[in-house]
């Protein structure tokens, strides 16, 4: 029972995630939305990937520019294993395919880690970048293992399932992804509480001191890197099951960058930060890109805003509220937040409108697209929409500044009280 009480959050998350796809369920046709399921499966995979990236960045202070190499190589290994299973050469239950990917990631993490973990900080980052470039180039050149441009395709429908499921529908795959995501996340969470996990923290904080308590920081980095490879490989294995294909872009720098962005946006401060970041990044990339041509610009602006004003990430921002919450006065922030909302929306609206207008005037017009809001086509050459955008942006900014100042005062006061209260108790 205590186990249940301690882990209620995990269980709640599992229930919510299982229920969530039904929001998109097409009752008329009686089928799930493949798009929503694939997107959510993608989030699951990327969450594992981001968490494993955080084993390096958050836990060990190692910034890798080539983490996708481990993810992708794991995926290739898993794909080859599936094909061997299909051919009857070996036997492996479908459910354990991600494990094959994990072992592949483990192996390559060990080998490449030998090189990369000789250094730390910037040198480590540059080595991983170099390895990333080399592997992604090799992925196109060597047909045998990588299958060239076309990649390796598999058929996930096998007769070796332990549960008797054939994984024909995205829903079944989603459940498998969910299961593995929970297992992997739980394992990674537990790993932070092991001697290695703790010493990785120690070496991150002060690698020299770690030496003087008997540890070889390089060995710590290497093992940590190898383990991160294992989990990234599990992600890769799941990727193969979702898309039934693995191509060179799984090892590419863009994929590595995604993990970095997800972890940074989410925040390294708490274990769940990377998961939150992943959700934001995937939705931005797969969701917004469907709707707006200028999605890259939004991504850029989002990052700059985050880096400048909230380098602690989303969980960090949430975490800031903890003292006030503990003092039981979170409710008093509600009003200031609500007051800040309209000007913030106004700024956002003005900005988005401006970007979209520009984007449609140049690129969109060239593509023969029309800028439409709620079905009404907007004439991007008339001054009205531009005026609205500019006014919204300008007035919103001024208003927001005022509200922000008021918010700040309230916040500081609450923080002060909360601190005093905590000090008194």
């Amino acid at each position, binding site marked *: 029972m205590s186990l249940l009480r301690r882990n209620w959050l995990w269980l709640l998350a599992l229930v919510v995630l299982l229920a969530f796809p039904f929001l998109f369920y097409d009752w008329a046709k009686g089928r799930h939305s493949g798009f929503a399921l694939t997107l959510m499966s993608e989030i699951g995979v990327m969450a594992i990937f981001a968490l494993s990236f955080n084993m390096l*960045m958050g836990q060990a202070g190692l*910034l890798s520019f080539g983490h996708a190499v481990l993810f992708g190589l794991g995926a290739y290994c898993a794909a080859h294993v599936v094909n061997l299973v299909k051919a009857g050469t070996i036997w492996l239950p479908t459910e354990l395919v991600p494990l094959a990917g994990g072992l592949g990631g483990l192996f390559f993490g060990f080998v490449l880690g030998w*090189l990369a973990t*000789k*250094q730390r*900080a*910037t*040198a480590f*980052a*540059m*080595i991983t*970048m*170099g*390895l990333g*470039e*080399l592997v992604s*180039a090799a992925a196109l*050149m*060597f*047909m*045998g293992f990588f299958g060239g441009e076309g990649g390796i395709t598999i058929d996930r429908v096998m007769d070796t399932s332990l549960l008797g499921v054939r994984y024909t529908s995205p829903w079944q795959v989603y459940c498998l992804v969910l299961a593995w995501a929970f297992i992997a996340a739980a394992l990674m969470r537990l790993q932070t509480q092991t001697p290695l996990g703790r010493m990785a923290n120690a070496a991150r904080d002060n690698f020299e001191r770690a030496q003087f308590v008997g540890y070889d920081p390089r060995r710590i980095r290497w093992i940590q890197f190898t383990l991160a490879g294992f989990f990234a490989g599990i992600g890769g294995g799941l990727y193969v099951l979702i898309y039934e294909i693995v191509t060179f872009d799984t090892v590419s*720098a863009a994929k590595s*960058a995604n993990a*970095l*962005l997800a972890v*940074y946006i989410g925040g390294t401060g708490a274990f769940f930060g990377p998961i939150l970041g992943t959700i934001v990044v995937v939705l931005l990339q797969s969701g917004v890109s469907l709707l707006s041509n*200028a999605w*890259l*610009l939004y*991504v*850029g*602006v*989002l*990052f*700059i805003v*985050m*880096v*400048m004003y909230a*380098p602690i990430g989303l969980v960090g921002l949430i975490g800031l509220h903890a003292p006030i919450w503990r003092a039981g006065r979170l409710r008093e922030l509600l009003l200031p937040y609500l007051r800040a909302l309209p000007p913030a929306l106004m700024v956002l609206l003005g900005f988005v409108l401006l970007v979209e207008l*520009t*984007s449609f005037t*140049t*690129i969109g017009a*060239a593509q023969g697209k029309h800028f439409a809001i709620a079905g009404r086509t907007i004439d991007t050459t008339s001054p009205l929409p531009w005026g609205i955008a500019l006014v919204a942006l300008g007035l919103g900014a001024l208003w927001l500044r005022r509200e922000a100042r008021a918010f700040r005062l309230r916040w500081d006061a609450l923080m002060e009280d909360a601190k005093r209260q905590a000090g008194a108790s």
Partner: protein
Amino acid sequence: MEVFVVSLLNGLVYGMLLFMLASGLTLILSMMGVLNFAHASAYMLGAYFAYTISLYVGFWPALIVAPVLCGLVGAAIEMWGLRRVHRHGHIAELLFTFGVALIIEKAVQMTWGLLPVPYRVPELLDFPLFRIYGTQFPAYRAFMLLISALMFGAIWLGLTRTRVGLVIQAALTHPDMASALGHNVPRIFTLVFAAGTALAGLAGVIGGNYQVTEPAMAFTMGPIVFVVVVFGGLGSLTGCFIASILMGLIQTFAVVFDVSLADLLAKFGITVTASTPFAEILTVTLPRIGALLPFLMMVLILVFRPRGLMGTRDT
């Protein structure tokens, strides 16, 4: 011999172009510790600015104005962005420049469109300068060599002979001391960032018509610049110069030598057939991987000598 001489010239031109890009980044990276992902974006901006300017007033004014504009962009980025981000650490700075790079790329697409723009070599320089073993050597390449050599000279003199240069060198090692002597170090930082960006812009002005001016040009030039800087070593302009030329020559000469590991093994009497393990890797010829050699060299040098070729401190 013929191939050798021509390749040497080509390697030099490419190496010098790399140097123009890398020198600015070396200064920025060694002084401020910023892995500036937007550096190649400045290269692209330089090319586009030069294109637009040369449409109206011609190439020669663009040669001056475009780098200056890039420098101003750089100064703005440093003063209003990077300086605020600095206290959040290096990863934050890096991500900041990454965001800037994304925004610049999109802004370029929105302004100039997705297709290459017809940014051409000025007519004055559009003739073959001389023929060497039947191959033309375009005057523009000589011009590029000249500009980059001038620039190398100018940076060198600027850093060693001018007062600002001395302050920059001083701030590289002991920023606190330099500021206690009365030098405005934050302004020096801005200046260096702006100058580095302007250099990249200049490289764009003269590289944009040598290559092709298109929105992806920043993306393709980015990694190799980092390689050059890291390989040459932090804090060393000489190292950066040597690394640039070396990378230029290696990539050029790798094309010339059609050899593979299998050929090497054949010397020892081992024949590689399709069934040999790793046959695919062994039979890869040098030209196929020439463009990858820089990355390989960077990884190796970092593993065994993290300060790079001539760096004054570890990367």
